[in-house]
């Protein structure tokens, strides 16, 4: 495919990154200050990239819709961050981390990118430790590791249950240092609403100040989008309330290809929603499945409390179906089976939307104190949210959307198909293939921001030496500003009857029911016809109260939901075209007799990248073939 040049360097896998760093164009240290870079988003990827670029000498402008860079949703990651340091001496290596990540991604990621990720992961741990991230330590004062997400080696570094928070604070503080030195200009409570291009290249963005409503242009030599994933397309997810796809989607509409939108990850152990107005789902650590037994009443109209259901009338569906792995089957298998039993009417809780995760056997076996020591925090959290005591009543759990592997298509340099526009972290599609391993999200965000982008961006910037950024008085900017303020006025003028949240909820239901854990042709076609219909209603009946001249959260949300509508439709199309099951994408038509995901490596071992064709037009699907030279493709089985 000539359109999608991945720019993967030549040479043996282990030498590709070194070769590339040598061949990539460099900007002379004293010239770096002549270049301006815009970074949108201040999560792990954005904050680390902005800080690192600024340390190198570039002039950086950073934008976040939050009131402080430290609020970005990377902060909520609990588990840890992987690196092949091999401190425990248990046989880990860069190649093993690479191999596990490619395999975990169900062979739908780019080998060279993943290998580079595994290579720089070690540097991330060094960097973060030096920044003062209080990783867990052993009594000897050295770093502790744990095994995570079913990995065969202990390679996960962690800081209590708050690894994401600590890593983000580390990156935020590095950014704060650059702000204090005057190299970074920080814009808080400022949302990017348009990407601006001139002569085919990204040259700036248009933003709205969320407090004053001012719509403004910012120009630069390059634009970096580090705006996270699109899990909130489901309405209910473990993402933060403000997480959105707007920055990425506006770039897509300007020509950046969107890759693999159908790859979404579902996390099996979340607390089920308690009513229709639930705003978000809370994730609980997967480690609970180590000791909890998952079951539902065998009869679909059993209304008794859990304690009154005799052993013989309980359906331990995972243990029965997968005797070898039992309750420890992978995330997607656990999630899908939960959906199957709930759809068949076995669900528990007053909305019948969960399955039991029962610790009574574990408490009997190990004693209450042991269970308390292991899971006390999680049990407290559960009790705080549900008001039920999980020591005496089984927990109720249900899967929820957690992470999105799809995102803007990027080449080996992390540049999108728009020259000068980069995408890093969860916002791009690059490293996780069709499924992400536990403790790899933090790794990828920081790898991109600290160690990849600062090198690769030079390739685009070096030839521009001497060129000033396009002035914001240029018509490309004034037109873009006009477009954004017209859109604002349009939303404020609809004056319909329903709130933005109402439409978002309805959209979420369509997406969850039809493009959720298990997909099939009919459902996907339903989604493709229902979503535009709801979108039309949305455009004509939404009510955005207030004005555009001050803080107006309805106005912020309406644009984000509008973009989710378009993305949801693309997700359905992508899922429909991907005639196989792989990773986070499960097509009911493509499964083995045991109900396992069945890949089609013959025809589907490629990245699907979609090109925007204009309002109301269906996007064009482009293909980047994936070549596997270093790993052998295998089909997994958990029987």
């Amino acid at each position: 495919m000539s359109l999608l040049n991945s720019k993967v360097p030549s040479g043996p896998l282990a030498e590709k990154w070194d070769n590339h760093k040598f061949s990539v164009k460099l900007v002379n240290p004293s010239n770096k200050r002549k270049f301006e870079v815009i970074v949108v988003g201040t999560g792990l990827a954005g904050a680390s990239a902005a800080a690192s670029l600024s340390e190198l000498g570039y002039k950086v402008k950073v934008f976040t819709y939050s009131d402080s860079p430290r609020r970005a949703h990377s902060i909520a990651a609990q588990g840890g961050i992987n690196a092949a340091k091999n401190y425990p001496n248990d046989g880990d290596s860069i190649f093993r981390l690479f191999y596990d990540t490619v395999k975990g991604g169900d062979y739908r990621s780019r080998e060279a990118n993943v290998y580079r990720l595994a290579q720089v992961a070690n540097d991330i741990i060094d960097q973060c430790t030096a920044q003062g991230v209080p990783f867990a330590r052993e009594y000897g004062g050295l770093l502790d590791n744990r095994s995570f997400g079913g990995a065969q080696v202990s390679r996960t570094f962690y800081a209590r249950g708050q690894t994401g928070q600590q890593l983000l604070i580390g990156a935020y503080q590095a950014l704060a240092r650059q702000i204090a030195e005057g190299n970074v200009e920080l814009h808080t409570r400022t949302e990017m609403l348009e990407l601006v291009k001139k002569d085919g290249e990204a040259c700036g963005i248009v933003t709205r100040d969320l407090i004053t409503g001012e719509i403004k242009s910012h120009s630069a030599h390059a634009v970096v989008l580090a705006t996270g994933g699109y899990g909130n397309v489901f309405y209910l997810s473990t993402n933060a309330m403000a997480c959105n796809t707007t920055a990425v989607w506006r770039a897509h509409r300007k020509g950046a290809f969107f890759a693999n939108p159908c790859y979404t990850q579902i996390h099996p152990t979340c607390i089920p929603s308690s009513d229709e107005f639930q705003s978000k789902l809370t994730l609980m650590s997967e480690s609970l499945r180590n000791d909890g037994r998952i079951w539902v009443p065998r009869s679909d109209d059993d209304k008794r409390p859990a304690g009154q259901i005799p052993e013989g009338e309980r359906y331990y569906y995972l243990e029965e179906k997968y005797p070898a792995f039992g309750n420890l089957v992978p995330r997607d298998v656990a999630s899908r089976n939960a959906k199957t039993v709930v759809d068949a009417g076995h669900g528990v809780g007053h909305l019948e939307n969960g399955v039991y995760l029962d610790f009574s056997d574990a408490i009997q076996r190990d004693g209450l104190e042991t269970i308390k020591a292991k899971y006390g925090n999680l049990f407290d959290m559960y009790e705080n949210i549900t008001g039920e005591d999980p020591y005496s009543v089984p927990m109720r759990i249900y899967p929820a959307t957690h992470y999105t592997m799809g995102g803007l298509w990027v080449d080996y340099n992390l540049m999108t198909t728009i020259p000068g526009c980069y995408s890093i972290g969860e916002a791009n599609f690059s490293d996780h293939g069709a499924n992400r391993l536990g403790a790899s999200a933090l790794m990828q965000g920081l790898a991109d921001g600290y160690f990849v982008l600062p090198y690769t961006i030079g390739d685009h910037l070096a030839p521009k030496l001497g060129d000033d950024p396009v002035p914001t008085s240029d018509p490309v900017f004034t037109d873009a500003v006009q477009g954004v303020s017209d859109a604002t006025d349009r939303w404020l003028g609809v004056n319909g009857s329903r709130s933005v949240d109402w439409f978002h909820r309805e959209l979420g239901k369509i997406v969850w029911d039809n493009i959720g854990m298990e997909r099939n042709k009919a459902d996907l076609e339903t989604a493709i016809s229902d979503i535009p219909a709801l979108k039309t209603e949305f455009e004509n009946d939404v009510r955005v109260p207030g004005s555009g001249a001050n803080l107006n959260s309805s106005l912020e949300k309406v644009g984000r939901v509008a973009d989710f509508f378009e993305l949801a439709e693309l997700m359905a199309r992508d899922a429909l075209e991907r005639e196989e099951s792989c990773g986070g994408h499960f097509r009911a038509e493509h499964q083995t007799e045991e109900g396992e995901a069945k890949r089609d490596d013959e025809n589907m071992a490629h990245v699907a990248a979609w090109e925007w064709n204009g309002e109301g037009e269906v996007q064009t699907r482009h293909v980047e073939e994936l070549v596997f030279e270093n790993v052998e493709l295998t089909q997994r089985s958990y029987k």
Partner: protein
Amino acid sequence: MSGSGNTNVLNLTLKVWRQEGPNATGSFDSIPVEGIADDMSFLEMLDIVNEQIIEQGGIPIEFDHDCREGICGACGVMINGNAHGPKKGTTTCQLHMRNFEDGDEIVVEPWRASGFPIMRDLVVDRSPFDHIVESGGYISVNTGAAPDANLIPVPKDASDMAMDAAACIGCGACVAACPNSAAQLFTSAKLSHMNLLPQGQAERWKRTEQMVETMEQFFGACTNHGECTEACPKEISLDNIAFMNRDYLKSKVKNRKLTGQVFP
């Protein structure tokens, strides 16, 4: 249904602070709220109130919030005079309505302090916290310059204490709850985090001096009431403040001494 997850329904009256903008004068609005399930979170209750307001053609209540799992630190309102509400060690988003009784009047106010000017309704500007961090709340290490992570062993106790302090989410409840609007708990937690670690020693005295002095440009003076720790959703200890006070005096002496050595 199997007995679990029963909900009670509450009818409440909200007395909410409404203020159109930073320079507008605000006042309380009384809003009756009906049919609130007690397993909703406080912010979900506000969501419902807002949805009702929108349907009736009004302007919804603005409030800060994001992750809704108690870690981002964006949310935070005074509920009946309590920062983050009546439950200890909890953020507003993790506060559930079962902590209230049917028929309650709930007074909802923004954080109040000169350092946290109100932007609109319940939203305040907490950027002075960022300024405090910018003035020294970091360990200066450029990307790529770090030695191997295991080069410097850190005693487990020091690491654990640093982590206790680093758990701060920067929500501002400490300032809001403080009768003096002092930011000692936030600043001292940030200082303890780095001053306890070997990695943070090189800049320890400079960091302490600068962060304390930046803090004092925006916030009041601590009188050791201890309200901050009580309000803190992460229950950060007052010991950090004592530690900061001790380090601040040392910093005044040591910073001079260092300068004296470098420039005799």
